[in-house]
C-alpha cells in the first residue's frame, strides 16, 4: 500500500489522501502472466530435429549430422530471442528448446564420429587399392 498524494485542498476546504492499494500490483502480475503465451521461436522444430538426429544410419551419418546442425543453429537463434525478451515466452517451450539442444549435441557428436570412422576407412582402403594399382602398372612398364 503506497500513499500517492496527500495535502489540503484549499479550494474545496478539506484534507485529502490518495492511496495506491495492492490491487494495482496484482493487476500487473496478471498482465505479465497473460503475456507469457508465446512459444520460444524454433522450440518445437529444435526438439523434433534433435531427436531425429539419432537416425544416423544408412547414409554414413549424414542425415543425423544435417538434422543436428540445423537444430543447433535454430536453438542458438531461439535462445537469443528468449534472452532479449524473457517475460514474453512460456517456460515449457524453453525447456523443450534446451532438451532439443542436448539431444542435437549428442546426435551431432555421434554422427560425426561415425562419419569420421567411415572417412578414415575410405581413405585408407582407397590409398591401399590405388597404391597397389599404381605399383602394378609401374611393374608392367
Amino acid at each position, binding site marked *: 500500500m503506497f500513499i500517492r498524494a496527500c495535502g489540503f485542498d484549499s479550494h474545496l476546504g478539506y484534507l485529502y489522501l490518495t492511496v495506491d492499494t495492492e490491487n494495482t500490483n496484482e493487476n500487473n502480475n496478471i498482465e505479465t502472466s497473460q503475456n507469457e503465451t508465446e512459444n520460444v521461436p524454433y522450440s*518445437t522444430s529444435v*526438439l*523434433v530435429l*534433435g*531427436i531425429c538426429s*539419432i*537416425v*544416423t*544410419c*544408412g*547414409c*554414413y551419418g549424414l542425415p543425423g549430422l544435417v538434422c543436428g546442425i540445423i537444430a543447433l543453429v535454430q536453438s542458438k537463434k531461439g535462445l537469443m530471442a528468449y534472452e532479449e525478451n524473457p517475460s514474453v515466452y512460456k517456460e*515449457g517451450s524453453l*525447456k*523443450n528448446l*534446451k*532438451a532439443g539442444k*542436448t*539431444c542435437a549435441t*549428442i546426435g551431432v557428436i*555421434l554422427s560425426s564420429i*561415425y562419419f569420421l570412422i*567411415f572417412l578414415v*576407412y*575410405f581413405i585408407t*582402403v582407397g590409398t591401399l587399392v590405388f597404391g597397389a594399382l599404381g605399383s602394378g602398372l609401374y611393374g608392367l612398364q
Partner: protein
Amino acid sequence: MLPCGFKQLTGHDCPGCGFQRSVASLAEGDLTTSFEFYPPLVFIFTLFFLLIIHLIFNFKNGASLLKWTFIGTTFSILLNYILKMTNLI
C-alpha cells in the same frame, strides 16, 4: 529395402543395420523376430511415441523425460552395436 552403403563398402554392419528387417517383421506381426533383428527399435518407437504425445499435450516434465529417453535410446544403440561387433550375442 534400401541397401546399407557402409556394409557394402566395408563388409561390416553399421549401427543401424537390422533396423529395416526389424520394422518389416514387425509389420508382419512377428514380434520375436523383430526384437532379435534390432533390439533398440523398442526404445526408438517409445521415443517417437513420447515426442508426439508431448507435442500434442505439453506435459510439465515432458522435455526432461524426452531427454532421458533419448539418452537411453543412444546407449541402447551403442550397446547393441558393441555386442554385435564382439559377437557376444
